[in-house]
């Protein structure tokens, strides 16, 4: 068997893509450092139990056995390792963290998807004020402007909108789950069949419209206004409206929509959810929300938390890096090293040629599309 083949679903990153990703990561790091976030880095390997409550969807995890016979996984997510870290240390809260790293998810074989993905993100742990959500939204808006030069659409939702509405419809937990599932998957043939039994109820019109309750906030709220909602739902909607009013005031240029028919990104979400997408993208670029029960998997005491992930690979696909100015390759003798170093510092796009002869240096410069600067003869560009 050949020894130079990659495992399925992986890739080497080189050239424009590698440059784009490096730039995106440095923009994110600078932005979050400026905001005073603390960097956190957790291992690629975790015990499988850390991800017990993680919903993998159509993916699988890479699994190994360690020498003790425990199952070790390559992390499929960055948030639960941070929750594990917080529950096992006495870090005083509240805290603001950010991370950048790779996650691993095995997708369907031969589907053209990659299994190693770069994700950045933030976790605001110990904050129960809505200000935590607002800082996340500000970051999405500012980062997308800086990285993509265009505004993305921020889509807001309520993690438990569907369960809250459904529990007033029926006490049958299994039926609630079935309806929610069909709604989230927008499996309309199945959904229509399930809600048929409520066709005599006044809420039936709302149930019928529910799968389409997303898009422009004014339109969606106008639709909702036609129906009597429970006090609990009304208060959730009121919070959502507050946030939209705030966005319109603080970031008037920001496009914002709502979606009351989608599944929360993970089962541990408890409050507002927010995602950001771009008109040309194949998936969400930003995804997050409030998850006050995040730590419950690891300890008795819960902590309020808001966080989000940023899909670095997806942003890299959308960014066309600007062609940088041409490199200058410095050719020199070994005894001219100090002189060459001085030139290297002076030239912003300089690099040392390590070729032994000038002929080799010319080939080296040609391969790198660089101009050759020869320090051994006349000090001029060739």
């Amino acid at each position, binding site marked *: 068997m050949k020894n130079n083949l990659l495992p399925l679903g992986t890739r080497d990153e080189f050239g424009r893509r590698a440059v784009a990703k490096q730039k995106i990561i440095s923009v994110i790091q600078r932005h979050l450092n400026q905001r005073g976030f603390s960097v956190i880095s957790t291992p690629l390997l975790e015990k499988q139990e850390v991800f017990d409550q993680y919903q993998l969807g159509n993916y699988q995890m890479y699994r190994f056995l360690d020498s003790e016979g425990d199952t070790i996984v390559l992390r499929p997510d960055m948030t639960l390792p941070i929750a594990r870290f917080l529950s096992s240390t006495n870090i005083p809260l509240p805290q603001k963290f950010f991370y950048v790293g790779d996650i691993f998810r095995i997708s369907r074989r031969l589907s053209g998807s990659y299994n190693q993905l770069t994700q950045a993100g933030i976790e605001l742990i110990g904050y129960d004020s809505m200000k935590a959500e607002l800082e996340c939204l500000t970051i999405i808006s500012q980062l997308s402007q800086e990285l993509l030069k265009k505004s993305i659409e921020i889509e807001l939702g309520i993690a438990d909108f569907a369960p809250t509405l459904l529990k007033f419809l029926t006490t049958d937990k299994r039926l609630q789950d079935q309806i929610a599932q069909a709604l989230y998957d927008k499996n309309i043939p199945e959904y229509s069949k399930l809600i048929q039994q409520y066709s005599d109820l006044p809420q039936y019109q709302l149930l019928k419209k529910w799968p389409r309750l997303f898009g422009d906030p004014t339109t969606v709220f106008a639709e909702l206004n036609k129906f009597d909602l429970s006090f609990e739902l009304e208060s959730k909607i009121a919070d959502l409206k507050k946030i939209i009013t705030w966005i319109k005031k603080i970031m008037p240029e920001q496009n914002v929509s709502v979606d009351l028919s989608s599944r929360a990104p993970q089962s541990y979400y408890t409050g507002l959810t927010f995602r950001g997408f771009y008109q040309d993208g194949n998936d*969400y670029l930003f995804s997050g929300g409030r998850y006050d029960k995040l730590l419950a998997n690891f300890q008795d005491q819960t902590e309020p938390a808001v966080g989000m992930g940023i899909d670095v690979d997806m942003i890299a696909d959308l960014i066309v890096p600007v062609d940088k100015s041409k490199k200058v390759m410095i050719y020199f003798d070994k005894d001219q090293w100090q002189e060459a170093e001085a030139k290297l510092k002076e030239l912003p796009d300089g690099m040392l040629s390590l070729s032994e002869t000038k002929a080799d240096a010319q080939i080296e410069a040609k391969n790198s599309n660089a101009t050759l600067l020869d320090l051994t003869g006349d000090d001029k560009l060739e």
Partner: protein
Amino acid sequence: MNKNRIKIALTKGRVEKQVVPLLERAGINCDQIRQKKRRLIFDSVQPYEFILAKGPDVTTFLERGAADIGIVGSDILVEHHSTQYELLDLKTGQCQFVLASTKDFDPDEPKRKIIGTKYPNITKKYFDSLGQDVEIIKIEGSVELAPLTGLADAIVDITETGTTIKENNLKIYNYLDKVSTRLVVNRMSLKQHPEEIYSLVDKLEGAIKNENLSKEY
């Protein structure tokens, strides 16, 4: 490629033949597809762009966002664990999964059965629901041959009328999920082009209802 045009991946063959008249009743001019010869891409079916592909590939195009809408049988959606939005049952291509075998087959015989099928995931799901572990053999076509040649004890396959099964001296032992052609939408595309997509869905839904009404009278 114009990113703003809605791209529809249509399953070629039988689904295409059944769905083109429905698209036309919904007001979409399909002359180009009808006179396709060997072409696979049709860009003057305003405001859409159609591509013709095999069923399983329609799900791949959709999952990867290379198509916004897919028109494909629910058998393929279930078998390939599609995670995209299933917005409409087009009520064409209606058939059903069945468990079939030779007349001497005993479904209750206490043994680990060997089942031949083109649909291993659906077969596994069905026997899982019965609490039975079976050996599945993947067969690409003429599945009826499997029990006749002794390759398998029984088959799980789709049938419209049951004729092929009867003609091959096989008997139907159980009826499984029903199958029909569905309109499926990429999750992100629905957020990016809701008006265009729902306008097509509503037109098609209207055309399906009208046809059902005219059948009744």
